[in-house]
């Protein structure tokens, strides 16, 4: 995809999200708004090639979609509906519409909607991604997901989940739910960077950071996702995972890295530290290697310590143990891993990968091989499996 393609897609996506949010907020019926907007786009595809693209495509789409909504509602007399389509002024462009995307995000991540539907709903409504594409990415049945999304939208309408910003005291929790859902998109991308949703995660995070300019964590999340996405080309080479500290920094996207640096600086200035900011700061330290040529393990050690205070997780503890090994030697790292195994159980894949690496460093070839085999058995992603196999085979060659 060229930069021009990307820009065109971004504009189209922006229009879709804005128009759908606007129509949904007015009718309080997302399904109705989606159908009407789809009809408008279909009409555009069939008429624009003949009559030319209108001067203001968004206003045209909005007018057609609004009429389609009114028509559909007339046909819905069988059922009572609270939905209403008041006269909407024809705006100059989607950019002139009131931006209702934040309220749409709030609806998608509403506590009355099942948590695992937050992300699919956002992808479908704000970005216009089809349910079957979302289902493939999250490895769930397309039929089941489609049904659940339809039901969720019916509930939003019937239970009248409000298209408005929540009360001031609820705002942080609701914003946090949106961030979790965006973070989940990022997670999918991380697992399979080839066909993932890196652009989509970044788009949503950047959108939220702009819609909530005073929220430090929203800026932190945008930074975190941008740092990760900047390394997308370097993370997997020839189908094999490349750990961050050995990646070719020439493959890192400098524009995205600079964007992430700016977002993180802005986040810190807001003076409200949080999990996403610390995670982003960890990525930032890793990526400073591009300028300095070295990784500051002491700084990473402090950041992981801070992260475990706020958001303890097994994954972060394993990463912390690996950093401990860099700072205090492999034996200290192995000790930390043993403690994690006692508390988190023995089937933690990254734990075995880290242990194998440290055992190999200590010259414990036989034990390292066993640990690599265990890590490979627990791994599910091919780039990770190939990486671990490569390490194990190199070890056997040395023995």
């Amino acid at each position, binding site marked *: 995809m060229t930069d021009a393609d990307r820009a065109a897609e971004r504009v189209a996506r922006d229009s879709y999200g804005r128009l759908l949010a606007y129509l949904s907020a007015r009718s309080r019926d997302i399904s109705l708004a989606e159908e009407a907007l789809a009809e408008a786009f279909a009409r555009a595809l069939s008429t624009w090639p003949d009559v030319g693209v209108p001067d203001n495509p968004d206003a045209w789409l909005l007018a057609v979609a609004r009429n389609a909504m009114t028509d559909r509602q007339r046909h819905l007399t069988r059922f009572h509906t609270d939905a209403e389509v008041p006269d909407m002024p024809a705006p100059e462009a989607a950019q002139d519409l009131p931006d209702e995307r934040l309220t749409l995000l709030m609806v998608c991540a509403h506590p009355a909607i099942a948590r695992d539907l937050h992300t699919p709903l956002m992808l479908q409504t704000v970005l216009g991604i089809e349910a079957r594409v979302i289902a493939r990415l999250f490895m769930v049945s397309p039929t089941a997901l489609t049904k659940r999304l339809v039901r969720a939208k019916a509930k939003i309408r019937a*239970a*009248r989940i*409000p298209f408005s910003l*929540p009360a001031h005291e609820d705002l942080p929790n609701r914003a946090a739910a949106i961030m979790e859902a965006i973070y989940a998109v990022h997670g999918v991308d991380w697992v399979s960077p080839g066909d993932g949703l890196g652009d989509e995660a970044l788009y949503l995070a950047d959108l939220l950071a702009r819609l909530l300019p005073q929220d430090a964590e929203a800026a932190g999340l945008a930074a975190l996702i941008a740092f990760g996405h900047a390394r997308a080309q370097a993370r997997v080479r020839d189908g094999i995972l490349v750990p961050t500290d050995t990646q070719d920094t020439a493959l890192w996207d400098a524009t995205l890295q600079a964007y992430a640096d700016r977002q993180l600086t802005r986040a810190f200035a807001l003076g409200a530290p949080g999990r996403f900011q610390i995670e982003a700061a960890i990525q930032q330290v890793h990526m400073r290697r591009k300028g300095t040529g070295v990784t500051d393990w002491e700084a990473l050690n402090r950041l992981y310590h801070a992260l475990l205070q706020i958001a303890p997780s097994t994954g972060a503890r394993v990463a912390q143990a690996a950093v401990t090994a860099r700072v205090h030697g492999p034996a200290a790292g192995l000790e930390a891993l043993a403690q994690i195994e006692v508390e988190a159980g023995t089937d933690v894949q990254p734990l075995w990968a880290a242990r194998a690496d440290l055992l190999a460093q200590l010259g414990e070839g036989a034990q390292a091989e066993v640990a690599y085999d265990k890590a490979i058995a627990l791994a599910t992603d091919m780039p990770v499996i190939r990486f671990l196999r490569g390490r194990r085979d190199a070890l056997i060659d040395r023995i």
Partner: protein
Amino acid sequence: MRYTFLLYTDPADLANMTEAEGMAQRQAYQSYIEALNAAGVFVDTDWLQPVTTATTLTLKGGTRQVQDGPFADTKERLGGYFVIEVPDLDVAMSWAEKCPAAQTGKVEIRPSAMPTG
């Protein structure tokens, strides 16, 4: 928008209540009703007989089926309900949170299916 709160409680909790606890519970509901009234959102409420008196009826499948007992096989049993009139689910949820039943059991919120005005 009219919402109904269905209040689910474990009958065992009620059976083990002392007289003083029962009084405190009734007082809590009285205060809640007063708060709903003061906010102008109160519509109706009831206190239901024990679940042993419940009957469930369905016409699903074309014939009338009557079942002795509640609809769901969970530890909590329907113990009462509130009907409130508020603009949207967020407001309904904030009132459900304040309901004494939310402390010890579950409150199911159902939007009304009745056409409004």
